[in-house]
């Protein structure tokens, strides 16, 4: 067996004092640890604001949602602003079903998230 395994590319950009992370792909049980690690690194680097651009995420399961909830809690502790933006309709509906849509700061566009 080749353990090439599942990957999740995450583009990381600095815009002013914000770090923008843009994962590309499904955030599921096999891939959410990759997103978890990328968020933890952004927090360690001391950004004032972290924006998750979810425009490239067609799907997320409860392990992805749990990673977001954990990130929110860590950001609160460290007084870092966390926001989500550009959700696909599927991921938006998953956040709604999990009743997490009111828990997170969610912006339509990436620019609004960076400014907001």
């Amino acid at each position: 067996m080749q353990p090439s395994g599942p990957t999740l590319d995450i583009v990381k950009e600095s815009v002013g004092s914000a770090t923008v992370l843009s994962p590309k792909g499904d955030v599921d049980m096999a891939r959410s640890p990759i997103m978890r690690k990328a968020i933890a690194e952004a927090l360690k680097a001391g950004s004032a604001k972290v924006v998750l651009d979810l425009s490239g995420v067609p799907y997320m399961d409860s392990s992805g949602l749990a990673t977001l909830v954990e990130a929110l809690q860590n950001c609160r502790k460290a007084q870092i602003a966390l926001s989500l933006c550009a959700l696909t309709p599927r991921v938006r509906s998953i956040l709604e079903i999990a009743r997490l849509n009111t828990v997170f700061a969610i912006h339509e566009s990436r620019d609004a998230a960076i400014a907001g």
Partner: protein
Amino acid sequence: MADSLAEPEIQVQILSRPELLAPVRSMVNALAQDAGLDDISACHLVLAMDEALTNIIRHGYAGSPDGRIWIRLSQLADGPGLRVEIVDRARTVDPDQFRGRDLDEIRPGGLGMHLMRSLVDRLEHAPRPEGGMRVVLEKRPAHTTAGVA
């Protein structure tokens, strides 16, 4: 609601490995759309199945990569919609012991069971006499209610 007696159109056996979830989701998503589910309903069925499989891999087989999981897929007999039946040979547990957290409680774990209940029109967990567990999920399009229990 009586179970459909027709032979499932597709039956899949996978090993209990997280990296196999994405390929199975792709297939079930395509089938769900062919069975008349709208895009969001198909996504919700796929998510419910994914949560059931994740639980079997994580809790049932306790992370062992060589457990077997069988997934049977069939269109509903009495209207548009898809049925997903999942069978394992993992730990047999009393489904009443499955504890999910309340959706209003905000913490990372325990979301799976509650999500599953909110996502599909029918959800059943039962121990199998032969050992292991059986989960049945059914989903109809958002605008139909025909036959929903």
